[in-house]
């Protein structure tokens, strides 16, 4: 599955999130920074089986204790997705990047983490 490929690409890139890259959600007690990915759509993009392409929509959430860390982590994670998609004979490009959800006060007075969101479209060879 492409989700596991994407997780592998980001983990292998040794970002500041290290191995804390997961699909969908993260454990609330997990250390930061961390990355979650969400593959929202997947579809066939080309006819036939010659150089067949699949198209995926990917959202990367980079979660860190401050905005700058979250943003640089999102950029790094998106960069590894683009790099590895190209190495695999596909292509990935940004639809949206550098969108920051700034930390908000949670219950009590503790600050919740900052989240940077990157949205990518991936065209990847299918089988």
């Amino acid at each position, binding site marked *: 599955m492409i989700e596991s490929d994407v997780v592998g690409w980001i983990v292998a890139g040794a970002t500041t999130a290290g191995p804390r890259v997961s699909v969908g959600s993260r454990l609330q007690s997990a250390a930061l920074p961390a990355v979650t990915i969400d593959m929202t759509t997947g579809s066939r*993009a080309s*006819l*036939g*089986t*010659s*150089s067949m*392409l699949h198209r995926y929509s990917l959202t990367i959430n980079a979660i860190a204790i401050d905005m700058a860390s979250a943003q640089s982590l999102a950029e790094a994670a998106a960069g590894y997705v683009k790099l590895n998609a190209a190495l695999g004979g596909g292509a990935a490009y*940004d*639809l949206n990047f550098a969108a920051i959800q700034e930390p908000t006060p949670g219950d009590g007075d503790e600050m919740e983490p900052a989240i940077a969101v990157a949205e990518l479209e991936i065209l990847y060879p299918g089988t």
Partner: protein
Amino acid sequence: MAVPTAGNAVFSINAAAVGEVASATLTVSRQPIEVTAIGDTYRKHEYGIVDGTVNLELFWDTAGVTGHNTIVTALENGTLLTAAAVVWESGKSISGNAYVQDVSITVAPNGVAQATCTLIFSGSAITITQ
């Protein structure tokens, strides 16, 4: 019953499938010729000659994908593409030799290079296999 196109449908040139085709639209027509005589009460037409065009949408890659270079080379040199065919199911197709009328390449900041092409069947039979 509807025919799923996912894996079976292809656009091919000389029996070789062209890669990274986002869509192929084939139109076959027979323009009517008006033969109404003066004094007739109603218009009258005869069948004209069979004509056909193919409109393609491609993820444009002349370096790495089968067939894209063939299309742009045919346009550049004014040569015919042999047996341009739209196949919608195994063994079912419409094909003919075709000229490349136009190639339009679109690039945008967030995306990949895409092209639309128009081919016109010319000078030989349009074969309908169904």
